[in-house]
């Protein structure tokens, strides 16, 4: 397919693999965190790890939108759908994420809640227009990529005078999460997460630009390369990161120049700014409470804020004991180091969010990586 297959070209991949092998210093290791689930997906789906030297390791970051949503917010959505007689509109990825006691939206739907899977905020608006006698809530999740459409939907609802449309806003921000990961002290009994550099977000950066990562790169002396989601993007960005690390640089470089500029999409930023504002703090699954890392709906638009319209009181929220999603999202553990991985927790019966979305590290490991892990284990035993 034109403009897609070019970025998946096997012969170019081999050339890049050779360049990476030449650049990587065998005397050290490279711990590279790919921030986004989209990167994780590409690495596993195309077998990128097979093409880089053994001392170049990808650490899977928290950039999977459904994975970082804390259980409490998901429980709130389930409660909204079950007990407030609303039509809850959600992105498909969110449907199977387990909340407290494994209660997911898909289970709530089976109990009679009216939950509709939508592909865009425009679908949610249409459902609101078509059901003027019902309250329609859009369950807004995601990073800066999905935020502008939410802002636009609220503006449209205001212009149209839609009285039955609200947004349950859970949008989160990328740069504070990156800063938090490199800055956070290790949990008790856990080694500090050593990250040598970041493959920076691609679609997120098309909205916010590459400039917002500059302070974190400078302060924490970690190089960032904005990387596209195609496998050749990931490999070229890997080479760029290794070169920066070797040279002791910590710049923000942009590999994804066909989409990302330093300033990003100003119009989208203005729309978000108009409708949404910073929360003082927000809880992330895996990262804990991160200051100024999420957005809420501004007072001027509070009539569209589901948190204002409904009194949501979900009971005490709890994650499954011994689920390692939090440590996996911080990059502190690999999915295979979780006791539940592969026996209790599988894509058919996910215990934690990382096993649900195909962007989640556990699901990606399960779907694409097991064979390689198994082969590696066999090799270790043989040695």
């Amino acid at each position: 397919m034109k403009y897609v297959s070019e970025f998946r070209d096997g012969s170019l991949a081999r050339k890049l693999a050779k360049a990476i092998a030449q650049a990587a210093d065998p005397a050290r290791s490279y711990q590279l965190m790919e921030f986004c689930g989209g990167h994780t997906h590409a690495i596993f789906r195309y077998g990128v790890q097979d093409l880089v030297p053994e001392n170049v390791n990808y650490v899977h970051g928290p950039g999977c939108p459904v994975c970082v949503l804390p259980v409490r917010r998901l429980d709130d959505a389930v409660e909204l759908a079950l007990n407030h007689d609303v039509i809850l509109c959600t992105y498909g990825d969110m449907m199977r994420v387990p909340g407290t006691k494994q209660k997911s939206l898909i289970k709530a739907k089976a109990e009679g809640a009216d939950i509709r899977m939508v592909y865009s905020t425009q679908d949610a608006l249409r459902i609101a227009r078509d059901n003027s006698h019902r309250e329609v809530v859009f369950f807004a999740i995601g990073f800066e990529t999905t935020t502008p459409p939410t802002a636009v939907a609220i503006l449209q609802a205001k212009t149209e005078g839609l009285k039955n449309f609200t947004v349950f806003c859970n949008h989160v921000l990328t740069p504070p999460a990156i800063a938090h990961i490199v800055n956070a002290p290790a949990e008790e009994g856990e080694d500090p997460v050593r990250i040598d550099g970041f493959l920076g977000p691609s679609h997120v950066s098309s909205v916010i630009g590459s400039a917002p990562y500059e302070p974190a790169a400078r302060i924490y002396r970690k190089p960032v390369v904005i990387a596209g989601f195609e496998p050749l993007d990931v490999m070229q960005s890997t080479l760029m990161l290794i070169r920066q690390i070797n040279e002791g640089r910590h710049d923000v470089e942009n590999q994804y120049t066909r989409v990302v500029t330093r300033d990003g999409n100003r119009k989208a930023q203005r729309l978000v700014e108009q409708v949404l504002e910073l929360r003082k703090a927000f809880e992330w699954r895996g990262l804990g409470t991160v200051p100024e890392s999420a957005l809420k709906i501004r007072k001027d638009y509070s009539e569209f804020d589901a948190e204002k319209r409904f009194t949501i009181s979900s009971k005490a929220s709890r994650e499954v004991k011994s689920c390692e999603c939090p440590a996996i999202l911080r990059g502190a553990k690999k999915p295979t180091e979780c006791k539940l991985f592969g026996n209790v927790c599988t894509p058919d019966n996910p215990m934690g969010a990382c096993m649900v979305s195909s962007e989640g590290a556990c699901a990606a490991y399960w779907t694409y990586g097991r064979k390689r892990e198994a082969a590696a284990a066999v090799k270790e035993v043989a040695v």
Partner: protein
Amino acid sequence: MSDTGCRSSLRTGTVDMTHGGGGRAMADLIEDLFHRHLKNPVLDQRHDAAVLEMPPGRLVISTDAHVVSPLFFPGGDIGSLAVHGTLNDVAMAGAQPVSLTAGFILEEGFPLADLENIVMSMARASLHAGVPVVSGDTKVVEKGKGDGVFITTTGVGVLAEGVAISPCAAKAGQVVLLSGPIGDHGVAILSKRENLEFETEIRSDSAALHGLVENMISAVPGISVLRDPTRGGLATALNEIAHASGVGFVLQEEQIPVGPDVRAACELLGLDPLYIANEGKLICICEATDASRLLKTMRAHPLGREAAQIGEVVEDDDHMVVMQTGFGGARVVDWLSGEQLPRIC
């Protein structure tokens, strides 16, 4: 009710509870809609059960329920699908189908004109396949308790002596053939789903495969496995065979045919063509030495023109399906978990 009266109500009326009540309304519906279009000598016996002359051979029976939404889609509808789906299940045993039965569950309020279109489509599919619908049943459920129409069909066929096709029969060293490009049916359905309508030329590949199977078996009677990769797609079908036969598979991504439109739609929606449903394709596992003869036979049939060899059967205690990617790495092709959900970014 006079014939003309019923005809006009077929164009304007809707299904109501009397159509399932066992009275005159039901009799009229059966006569003027089902019998009229599906007409054949066995159905005309007007028994509750069909009495058939069977050709010699072992009896093969398969049943399949059809609940597709939307009911009408590019390249077919629930009527043609209900015929093809069941005929293909019979054909995948290596059998030649002889007859079909059909059970209809209709929802109160369903337009009779739509029902007639569905039955006419079934009649065309059955005529084209050369397999008559010989018995049927209709029930009506209250509004809100169905999704317009559900159709369950049962197919009966006969299996010639010496044919031993089974999902348990794949052996290491054999090869995997695929009859054509994957994903057309699933993407055609998706393109008409509420919320997702997109412009595309993609049509469902829904078709009856027993003619192709007949040619294949005459060319190579020793075929080990036949399977139509319907729900869950190629990936799920191969995982099922891997477990049933106790083997693994190694696929070559670049050999798996996928049409450019399907590829583009999957790319946009974040879906993987390996997991998308097909209704007119088959997987065939055979000895490596038979592969070229079978491929030639398949390519000579209109439903197998783009047939390809896509991989091989290997020994693997984990029964995994692994794919060599065009990019140069390897990935596991696992079962589909739940429904394939679109990624959000």
